């Protein structure tokens, strides 16, 4: 008896164990899911599309760093970064190191979003209705184009700098990475190839969204697609196409300028006068064509972190910029008044959970004005004078009797200040900037104004070629 017990015990343990252990080892993840089951049905694809917008919200992208780093790289003394972070400092000095971790993070986040859009595009067929399919394709292509446009502008030479067909842009990846084998060491496509892809995608997207319409309140619309096309054409100095696209972006009757510029940033005419306004949000207004949504629960507004004087107060507004503002310009109410020991700060990003206004009617008006002006001939939509005066009147300024290109560009510089437009504008207008240390002039096509291909990428991909000057 005593000998049988342990014998049975052993047998039970060893044999019983063997039989059941495979089951015991079959532990499934629950906080995440197997990729194979990610796109089973229509709503899975819709969720994938929402994931693309969530990607855009990253602080490395439109959560703020992308606009911020571009502005600092272009800046010639409108603003001054006084914070401790070395990444923005390098941008301000126009001496980016190849190891700049923010440049690398932006690259990674941008391609993460691109992969998300590629996953959606590969599963479009699983959507229930043709309308949904059209919408999702349009939105995904808009997002992918947005990413590629900012990547090619940041990491490649400007369209007008030399020959776009010879200049290196960024790698075009248009299919999802599903397996390890898909993670290829892709070379850089040319600037021209990237622009071609963007224009093709956006043209398709605009048409698809005209058919399908937006899927969510925050979705990109056909107007956003046209607006982005306007940006792209403007960057190429293709003024006629830019004017036409800007005009299409403005075509919705639901859009219009707010009566007060500050409404774009959460203020009203009454509360903006108070020195300190504890605003928390800046919701979408009729002026918004496409925004990055931020709520207390979703996303983080990095522009608030850096610019807001009640947060890090890392960026001061310099006299050079204040000097651009005419007396009575209500846009000046969004800048604090400097004192002897306290410099000026912008109030545009005081709302901690403020939406980031990526594309507004005012930009499109100024784009249409400039593009019409420079294209010459019959203006599309409205005359440059009318468009500029719409902006000026809204800012509380006297309308102009006639308009020059310099006046249009000056309005643009004031209207869109600190919102990530300076670098692109500087390059296409072939302006120059200055080295903040030596005060030496840095021409628009200086390699110093192009981001380096991140060291992290060169390290893993020998087929990538570094930019000139790094």
């Amino acid at each position, binding site marked *: 008896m*005593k000998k049988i017990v342990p014998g049975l015990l052993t047998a039970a343990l*060893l044999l019983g*164990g063997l039989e059941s*252990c495979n089951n015991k*080892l*079959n*532990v499934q*993840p*629950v*906080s*995440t*899911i*197997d990729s*194979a089951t990610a796109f089973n049905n229509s709503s*899975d694809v819709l*969720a*994938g599309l*929402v994931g693309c917008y*969530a*990607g855009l*919200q990253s602080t490395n992208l439109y959560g703020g760093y992308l606009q911020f780093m571009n502005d600092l790289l272009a800046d010639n003394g409108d603003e001054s970064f*006084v914070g*401790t972070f*070395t990444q923005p*400092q390098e941008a301000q*000095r126009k001496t980016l190191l190849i*190891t700049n971790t923010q440049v690398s993070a932006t690259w*990674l986040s941008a391609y*993460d979003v691109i*992969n*998300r859009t*590629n996953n959606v595009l590969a599963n479009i067929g699983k959507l229930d209705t043709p309308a949904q399919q059209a919408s999702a394709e349009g939105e995904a292509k808009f997002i992918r184009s947005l990413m590629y446009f900012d990547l090619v502008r940041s990491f490649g030479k400007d369209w007008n700098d030399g020959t776009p067909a010879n200049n290196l842009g960024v*790698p075009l990846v248009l299919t999802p*990475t599903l397996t*390890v084998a898909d*993670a*290829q060491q*892709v070379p850089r496509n040319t600037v021209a190839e990237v622009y071609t892809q963007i224009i093709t995608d956006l043209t398709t997207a605009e048409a698809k969204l005209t058919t399908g319409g937006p899927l969510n309140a*925050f979705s990109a619309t056909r107007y956003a697609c046209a607006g982005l096309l306007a940006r792209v054409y403007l960057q190429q100095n293709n003024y006629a196409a830019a004017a036409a696209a800007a005009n299409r972006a403005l075509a919705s009757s639901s859009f219009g300028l707010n009566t007060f510029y500050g409404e774009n940033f959460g203020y009203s005419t009454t509360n903006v006068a108070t*020195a*300190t306004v*504890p605003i928390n949000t800046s919701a979408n207004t009729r002026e918004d064509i496409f925004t990055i949504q931020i709520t*207390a*629960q*979703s*996303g983080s507004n990095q522009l*608030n972190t850096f610019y807001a004087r*009640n947060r*890090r*107060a890392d960026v001061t507004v310099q006299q050079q910029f204040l000097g651009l503002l005419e007396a009575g310009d209500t846009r000046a109410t969004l800048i604090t008044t400097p004192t002897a020991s*306290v410099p000026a*700060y912008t109030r545009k990003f005081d709302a*901690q959970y403020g939406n980031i206004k990526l594309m507004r009617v005012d930009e499109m008006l100024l784009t249409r004005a400039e593009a019409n002006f420079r294209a010459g001939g019959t203006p599309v939509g409205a005359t440059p004078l009318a468009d500029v005066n719409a902006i000026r009147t809204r800012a509380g300024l006297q309308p102009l009797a006639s308009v020059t290109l310099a006046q249009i560009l000056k309005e643009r510089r004031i209207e869109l200040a600190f919102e990530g437009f300076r670098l692109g504008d500087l390059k296409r207008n072939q302006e120059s900037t200055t080295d*903040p*240390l030596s005060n030496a002039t840095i021409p628009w096509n200086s390699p110093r104004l192009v981001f380096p291909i*991140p060291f*992290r990428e060169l390290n*893993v*991909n020998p087929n*990538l070629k570094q930019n000139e000057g790094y």
Partner: protein
Amino acid sequence: MRKIFTPLLVVAALPALAQSQALTGRITGTDGSAVPGVTIVERGTTNGVSSDADGVFRLAVQPGATLVISSVGYTTQTIAVGGRSSLNVTLVANATDLGEAVVVGYGTQTKADLTGSVATLSSKDVGNQPVQSFEQSIQGKAAGVFIENSSGKLGQGIRVRVRGVSSISGGTQPLYVVDGVPVVADNLSSTTAATNPIADINPTDIESISILKDASASAIYGSRATNGVVLITTKRGKAGATRFSVGVQAGWSEPTHKREFLNSQEYVSLITEALTNRGGTFAVPANITARLSGYAGGVDPLTYDTNWQDQVLQKAGFQQYDLNASGGTDKTRFYLSGQYSNQKGIIVSNQYERMATRFNLDHQATERLSFGINLTATRSVNNRVPNDNAFSTPMQIVALAPITPLIDPRSGQVSGALDPSTGLPNTGFPFYYNPLLSIQGGTYVTTVYRLLGNVYAQLNLAKGLIFRSELGTDVLNQNEEQYLSRVTSRNTGNTNGYGYNANQTNAKVVVNNYFSYKNTFADNHSVELTLGTSYENARINGNSVTGTQFPSDSYRTLDAAAQITAGSSFTTSNALVSYFARGSYAFAGKYLVGASARLDGSSRFGAGRRYGIFPAGSVGWLISEEDFLKGNKTLSLLKIRASVGKTGNQNFGNFASRSLFAGTGYVGTPGQRPSQLGNDFLSWESTVQYDAGLEYGFLDNRISGEVDIYRKNTTGLLLSQPVPGTSGFSTINRNVGSLRNQGIELTLTTRNFVGDFAWTTSVNASINRNKIMDLAGPDILGSALNRAQAGQPLGTFVGPEYAGVDPANGNALYYLNTTNADGTLNRGTTTNINQAANVPIGNPNPTWTGGITNTFSYKGFDLSATLVGVFGNQIYDSAAPYFSTGFNNGYDNQTRDQLNRWQKPGDITNVPKAVYGGGIGTGASSRFVQNGDYGRLRSVVLGYNLPSSLAKRGFLQSARIFLQGYNLLTFTKYTGWDPEVSSDYVTGTGNTSSNNISQGISFYTAPQARTYTLGINLGF
């Protein structure tokens, strides 16, 4: 043949038989003093007792019995009773007792028969020290075990490396096993500063620690053994009168070192120079005056001279109370303990408090069946400070200007406190967020409740054959509660308070069933066999809620938050099914052979490779037992051994082999995204380790020690390989690449004096060379300059080499280090750091480490001093680009060495020109790498034991008073805060590769604590 004795058998002591005879005896040391706690066992039986506080024991034995008398630290004696009814035994102290039982995986082995490399430590080495976790106490005491306390923050992660680092992307900490149960050691911190779950184990409860180093010792733990296995055995009761022991200890801590920053005068003069050098509007004198006056709160800049560092480093109290009781009968024995310890940090607001209880019980139910329980319940409360990279972390206060007042005269409050008129922060004053506001208005408390223990039953099936079944569980429940009041709003946002509450439960169930068999045949053939199975299941689940908008700062829990800003929950788990076997054979007690194997099936392995087998074999020869050496007093011990075996490491993410998607909502709408690329054939990292050892003893073991030489070849690294970002991913997991650790370990113990005045010296030294052989892909980058690069040790600093300052213009120069057309190295210099090639410029791995412990005793006095040393490593001061660059990165206060900056053509210096925001020399380079060698007087303990005659007058069995110093002296040329450093924000992240690679980084990292305590231990 030496008789084998194991505590297991003692535990299973049989009731005395009827025809036995009574025996009393007394055990004394060579100095005549009583030796309590000695185990006396009747040979060949399980009949035994232990000596009491007076060294006295009583035991009923069979006529003609032989006693085996043993105690840790003494030579075991075998004495025939021979009809005597009383017996006096003098035990000789011995550091290398071959009869000593060494705890190994699933059982014990006698030291003499051991063919593996095992470092053992006893209760004397831990406990009674002013530290939170036992690893800190054994720093520098075990050869081949490198232990690094990351900073002076309390309860933080501790880096333990057994024979080097064998993984790049997997875990590198050893497996911790407490009383047979592998315990939870995962970092559960919500911040990137790791916490240490091992600190929940009360060091005072530890009886012994075995660190299994070579494959033959550790392979029984299979796929988790590569990083070494630390076996902790807790104290157990012994039959006899109930003994109480009380310990009280109190003292204080202070920082080991403070760093020198510019004072007001120096700050004003240097920043003025830097602003002037910057030129333009910066250089206009009126602007400089206005700027500095702004920094000073609107007054003359020289009004204040604030030493900010002193505001966050403090002298801090420590107290600890221990009470334990143990005893029992032949059938039932118990050990009960309780501890309360409270240590305040040298960093203000930091505190670690622990309440621990333990209950160990053994019961002999029948002749064959015994069972028992080991159980510990702990509550620890850690008042934490933010990680090193947070603006709010106290140490970052050194960035503030000395001309900024501590108290803003305009408001009468701490500088940076909210403007009373608006309730908002003072714009840009001080120029950075003042961390004192977070100390004033923030709390971050981590509370851990932990229940760890097991029940066992043991059946004595036949002579020498035991079946043991253990059911263990480890439940760790952690709550993190944070509140940041309005005063912190510049750092956290103007949200009317911020609250965060997170709970995590890490629960583990372990079932071990095994047979062990020990027997000796025909006097010469000694056999030990172990065969068993094990099943483990671990599950972590957690949730967290974040909220803002509190009615006032008096409300600090989330039920008062008007806005919930984030909420989350997660679950993850893994299972491990194992079969293991071990056998050893000794012929004539001198020819030894051992073998073991474990088969592990893990849910973490890819579907294509679920099971791995990990075998090991070893041989040994106890030469001193040979006839030609036996009894030789000069060469009293000589043993050689060798082993080879394979171990694994599966310490990586639970679902690392899967292709995964994760949820990612967008403003209230559900979304998903790809989160990981999978690999069905992902599997354990495999390490083959070779070890050869020599154990020696001279002059009757007055001089003794061990030498080990080893090589660990790790292949199929579970590498989180970087992939082009264009794929949408940054890494993929693959079993590729290999690395190697090889080294030599040496221990030497000399008993210089024995007798009334006793002096023992223990020395250990370890050399480990780590080298990455192959990465099968690109280098893996860590934080700053650290890198995994083939041909280099893990974590090597690779970057631009600083060439000093151009005497002509004060610019920073870097060596090009590019290859010329003719293949030579271009040692030309450049001011453009981007043009300088990245070359190895330092190694964070020490070339050797060691420790010396001297113990003296005379009459009732004893003195023990441990000196530890770490040599040959470099440290990268990641904060130097901010505070040691002559204002080239902005207005942060600078270290005083910046006064040596270049000023005019011809100046020869290593510190470039001071240019405000000029970026000269700020890039990461060898400029900020320096040697990290140090020697440290880790601990000094001076004790006095009251003579027992005196103690007894106070109804005490024993009384001891002691004075202790911890980290008393540090010898180093390192200029930072403390050379024992590892910044927490780069080593506790979700990216394990980066954590492993980012060694030797200092970033505003708090110095270690120097602690003085006075204590008393009473036994009654």
